[in-house]
């Protein structure tokens, strides 16, 4: 077994283990942390597939930003474990059935029968100086420009929706600070107030 193969199986094993832990842990924070591990493992698999841009961006975006916010929320929430678990046993057979169906179906679709090396040849190795970042970039801004711009609109809508649904003016309850005003304070007049204090008379000790 070549070292690369070993790495592939190692990353895959970690990935599957982490994915199983994500859905079986009782504590949602643990689940989220295992999800982070799963992202790292899949980034490793991606690296092996010579997609270093995707691998690093997965870590950067999902691990570095999305999961941090996710953990932020999960840690703040007091999730009621009992309520979440209610009906678990009752639903389990259905869940297992669907899981098996999907698994069998995935095997049929992406298994060796359809995507094995005898069906689809292994892609050629890229030269060491291949830059898939540059390639992806030029594709995104030429061939896929329209979908790319639509994705930007989608994000704009997400912002509008999030602000529209959550933003409330709180009236006078919160003291908003006008930074412009703070900054434009003038040194002499506004910041320091000089008060003339009359000096005390010298007291005589008795």
């Amino acid at each position, binding site marked *: 077994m070549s070292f690369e193969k070993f790495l592939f199986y190692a990353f895959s094993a970690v990935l599957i283990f982490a994915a199983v832990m994500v859905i079986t842990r009782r504590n949602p*924070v643990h689940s989220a*942390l295992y999800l*982070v591990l799963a992202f790292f493992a899949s980034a490793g698999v991606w690296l092996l597939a010579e997609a*270093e*841009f995707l691998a*690093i*961006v997965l*870590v*950067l975006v999902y*691990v*570095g*930003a999305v999961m*941090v*916010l996710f*953990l*932020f929320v999960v*840690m*703040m929430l007091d999730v009621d474990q009992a309520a979440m678990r209610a009906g678990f046993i009752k639903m389990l057979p259905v869940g297992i059935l669907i899981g098996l169906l999907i698994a069998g179906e995935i095997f049929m679709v992406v298994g060796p029968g359809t995507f094995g090396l005898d069906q689809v040849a292994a892609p050629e190795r890229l030269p060491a*100086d291949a*830059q898939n*970042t540059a390639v992806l970039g030029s594709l995104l801004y030429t061939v896929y420009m329209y979908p790319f711009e639509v994705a930007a609109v989608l994000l704009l809508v997400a912002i509008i929706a999030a602000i529209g649904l959550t933003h409330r003016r709180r009236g006078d309850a919160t003291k908003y*600070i006008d*930074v412009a005003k703070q900054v434009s304070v003038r040194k002499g007049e506004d910041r320091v107030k000089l008060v003339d204090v009359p000096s005390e008379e010298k007291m005589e000790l008795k």
Partner: protein
Amino acid sequence: METILNFWNWLGENFILAQILIKIMAITLPLMGLVAYFTYAERKIIGHMQVRMGPNRVGFFGYPLWGLGQPIADAVKLMFKEIVIPTGANKFLFLLAPMLTLGPALAAWAVFPFDEGLVLADINAGLLYIIALTSVGVYGVIIAGWASNSKYAFLGAMRSAAQIVSYEIAMGFALVGVLVASGSLNLGDIVMAQQGEGGLFSWFWLPLLPLFVIYFISGVAETNRAPFDVAEGESEIVAGFHVEYSGMAFAVFFLGEYANMILISALTALMFLGGWLSPFPASWVDGVWLLGDGFHWLVLKTLIFGFLYLWFRATFPRYRYDQIMRLGWKVFIPITIVWILVVALMVLGDVLWWA
């Protein structure tokens, strides 16, 4: 000399892992020493600014030597202290957290070029790798805060999470500017792109001035240093996320924080101040000892930023939390976006002297 080189090549052919390990040691060990003496420098410099002495007793072999032995003594002290694990804390995560802080701070050095061609892993997507790893560092803080089972620690972790995620965006955008200007994600190429007849005026700090300033300030925020150290906030939440830590676990947090500071300083030097390039135009100093390009320039530039970190800590009062957020989202991010556009136009229009 020849024998050593031969042995080195033989090692590379037969035991590549051992060779890599030696390289890693060659980066990490000096770094650890630097971290130790960075703490000493901090105490001395801030002490000087506040007109006090700083540590001046612990020396070597009975000589005080301006307190140079202090970091060693501190390390020994921390090593022998008990690691107290609070009741109800999640033991595994509690002990994992400090390592998660230190790990990325060290791993980022893997792609860092110290001189032309002198780099452990010369990968094409080096800049992305750096951004990704610096963004992962926040996990140590979050997990520490949560696993400690303490309200103060948790508050610190929450503050830190929101702050780091916010400043990461500005930081990332600043680096996008560098990427646009240099046309490469490889850190070595980024430095070489700054080479030019103008000497220090060819470096990116001038055309990317707003990004340069924002990158460094965001770096200060990313490392949770004053004046953005609300995650620790000793006057409000005792010591924030590491309030429950003691002994070596605490020391590792400390190492991580300082290693991160050095990393950010070095990266700023690399990306905006031309890394190992000499500030003098090559035609002036051709062949002059120490004035040409070299590793020492990188060290010098890094130390300048390291000094700035300490200077900030000694002079600025701590930001209030909402002001931190305002600065990040409403000031830095818009400026970086605008400046990326400006840089892109400059590159397109060939306005710049580096192209």
